[in-house]
């Protein structure tokens, strides 16, 4: 079992890979992460983080057959490993624990 820690962007991207399942590759991960965070990440930032996650053992990748829309290049698809799933659960536990007892302010009154 890996004891590597997860940074904020690493966790966001790991969650995106888990959410996208079979369709997790650079472009779809970037769209998902950018759409949810409202930040426009470059594809280089996404792949650098994915490579880091792969080095930590949280995701694995495989290349698909080349496609004409990509100029004859392969797609690199990612999948969350068992260690990645454990890291997600651990991050969720930590987040719940950290947020426990914190009030985010009064709820807005209905108009």
């Amino acid at each position: 079992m890996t004891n590597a820690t997860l940074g904020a962007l690493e966790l966001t991207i790991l969650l995106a890979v888990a959410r996208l399942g079979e369709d997790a590759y650079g472009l779809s991960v970037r769209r998902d992460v950018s759409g949810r965070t409202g930040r426009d990440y470059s594809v280089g930032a996404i792949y650098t983080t994915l490579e880091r996650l792969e080095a930590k053992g949280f995701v694995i990748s495989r290349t698909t057959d080349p496609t004409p829309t990509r100029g004859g290049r392969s797609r690199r698809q990612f999948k969350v490993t068992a260690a990645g799933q454990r890291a997600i659960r651990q991050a969720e536990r930590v987040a719940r624990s950290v947020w426990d007892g914190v009030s985010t302010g009064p709820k807005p009154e209905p108009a």
Partner: protein
Amino acid sequence: MTLSSGSPPRAVERVLTALGADSEFSDTIVGDLAEEFVLRARWDGVTAARRWYCRECVRVAPYLLRDWWRGRRLLDAPHVIKAVAVSSLLVYGLEKMVARALAPAVLAWWRVVGQSPAYLGSMLCWTMLDGLLLGYLVARIGRRAPVVGTLAATGWWLTFWVGMNLLGGWRFDGSMGQLWYRALNPLMLCSGIMLGGLWRVARRAPSSS
């Protein structure tokens, strides 16, 4: 919305793949950019997609260069140094030959025009031509990492120029005293090196050997 899909600018693609990153890493990124380009060209039109593509390439270039630095810098460094040294010597030698051949004419002209803007402008153009030739040769000789070679040559000549100016020892003519000329000259040289190198890279795919 236009239905024309077009294709990404091939010259920019070649520059990206010539940045020296691991081929799998750069192919994946260039492939993703190409795929999104096709979608954006359908939605927003080819011109907007090309603009987006060029902007993304600028954003992605540092990551590709960082990949080169992590993976291949020790392997490619001797080739880059050789390319910069050989190109610099070739351009310096050629410049000496041309300068010697044209010296009487240039000196006669210089006596007439002195340090006029026309004279200094022509010297700046000469520096730019030097840079273009140097950049082209660096990218051609250092085929394994042509963009890195071009950047290294730019860095080396900029450092050299600034160093010589700070030391105040390089005064091949009286015009070196003019501040705007001294500021513009290294700028022209470095722009020339970058343009020459990128022009070479954009025309040819890098060697994988």
